[in-house]
């Protein structure tokens, strides 16, 4: 039987080892991130207990660790509001674009929305600032969630179009052969087939909105002395607390 020359066998071994090593190396940041979070945040969390999640942030005069309630509530509400705006729109757009792929409007829509998934989120924040915030006269939870919904819309759209494309052609044909029109097919067939994907898409957009900071930077405002002041009032978000303080301390380095 033909035996591979040693040089090729050796090269194969070495390269495979390198590939696996690089892949495993990539897991170390995750371990380091978890370790850093537990090391730096663990003691505070243990000391403050559950009240960390329900208390107001510490005032300059108080001694306790305080809590993050305003930021937590603000983050949750803003992201829920944002996906309530963006995912239905993204779902319907994905439906039309996959159902009428040849129409010129669908093509424009596809290219424009996909390109805008690369739009820098800070630009969206500036846009919402100069339209919504300026005309309302103050930063608000609503402006923050509008900004988040513009950012999450392309993600939800990309996810839902691939979900619609994954529907087997046979199901589509069966629905049409029963005399359904497209709206009927959407309601009676597609939604049932896609229920798992719909939930996943919602959750993914939610995670995206919850973790994003830049869209909220100029739109959410700042709230420290109450948990929730109203949708049209200033609010707070978990990532904002930190980046504000850091931005001030790190602002001017030599």
């Amino acid at each position, binding site marked *: 039987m033909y035996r591979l020359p040693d040089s090729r066998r050796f090269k194969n071994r070495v390269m495979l080892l390198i590939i696996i090593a690089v892949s495993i190396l990539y897991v170390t940041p995750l371990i380091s991130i978890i370790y850093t979070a537990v090391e730096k945040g663990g003691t505070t969390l243990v000391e403050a207990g559950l009240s960390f999640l329900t208390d107001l942030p510490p005032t300059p005069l108080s001694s306790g660790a305080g809590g993050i309630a305003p930021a937590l509530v603000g983050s949750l509400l803003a992201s829920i509001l944002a996906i309530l705006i963006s995912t239905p729109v993204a779902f319907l757009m994905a439906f039309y674009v996959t159902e009428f792929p040849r129409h010129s409007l669908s093509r424009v829509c596809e290219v424009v929305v996909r390109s805008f998934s690369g739009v820098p989120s800070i630009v969206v924040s500036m846009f919402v600032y100069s339209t919504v915030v300026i005309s309302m006269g103050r930063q608000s939870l609503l402006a923050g969630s509008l900004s988040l919904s*513009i950012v999450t819309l392309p993600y939800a759209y990309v996810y839902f179009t691939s979900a619609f494309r994954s529907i087997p052609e046979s199901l589509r044909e069966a629905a049409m052969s029963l005399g359904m029109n497209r709206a009927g097919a959407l309601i009676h067939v597609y939604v049932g087939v896609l229920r798992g994907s719909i939930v996943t898409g919602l959750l993914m957009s939610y995670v995206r909105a919850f973790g994003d900071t830049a869209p909220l930077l100029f739109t959410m405002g700042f709230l420290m002395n109450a948990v929730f002041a109203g949708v049209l009032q200033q609010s707070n978000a978990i990532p904002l607390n930190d980046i504000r303080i850091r*931005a001030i301390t790190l*602002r001017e380095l030599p």
Partner: protein
Amino acid sequence: MFFSKSDKLLFYSTLPLIGGVLGILLILSLMVLTQSWPSFQRFGLTLFTTSAWSPSDDPQKEFYGLSAPIISSLYVSALSVLMSVPVSICLTLTMIEILPKHLGAPLRYVTEVMGGLPTVIYGLWGSTTLAPFLRDQVMEPLHTYLGFIPLFSCRPFTGHSILVASMTLAVATIPYVTALLIEGYYLIPSKYREGAYSLGATDYEAYKIMIGILKPYIVAASLLGFSRALGETTIVALTVGNSMRFSICFFDPVHTIPSLIANQFESARLYEYALPALFAGALALLLISLVASYAGIRLMYGWRERIHV
């Protein structure tokens, strides 16, 4: 295309929705353009050829130049792509080809979890853990022993630098690039793999052929990752050091456009031309990232159509 009248009605009833979304995106671009207009009128092209950030109460004395942040933005993002793409290729191969299914799946979950982490967590990790570690373990020795190379010629100061920013960005964008590459890898027809093995290729040689077929897709994924890295604000603002100058050296702190905006936006309202200048930066950023995403998407679609003949 339309099977019936009701389909046609359905399509046209959604025009307001699609038009609305497209309208918002169009208004967004126009808004950035009009907001930045005063700075173009005042400074002209010097806005993009000089580098300065000197606000003043007297509008005549104000002067802004964005060349350093723009070039640094491109530099940091390109570095992060150079770091993330090879790792993503390795991860793709390990998950799909090398590891058995029950080991490949957990690795995939781990990368997906990392893709879902809030960017502020990466930013904090980069600035509190990675920066000191890299400064003591990597930057200092490189500067001491290889300081004659321009890339390592400057003394690391706090650790917050181009290197840390692009590395943190790379860690944060690898899940995204990997997800794209996995999607593309599954699209390659299996005849290529079978052909390679039937000619007696070793595993590594077969992977090399598969990656060769995937090449346009890899370029497309790099472009999309580049545009993602370019617009990333939180991570960069926390790790890049925020200093208004350009440097080719890896250990120097710089400003990227997003970090400049994040740091200066609040105070920019006080000056007449500061806000328009920031919007001009945003416009440049928007144009570059739209072009990169568009090129990436076109390349991806073209490859998908070619591979399925």
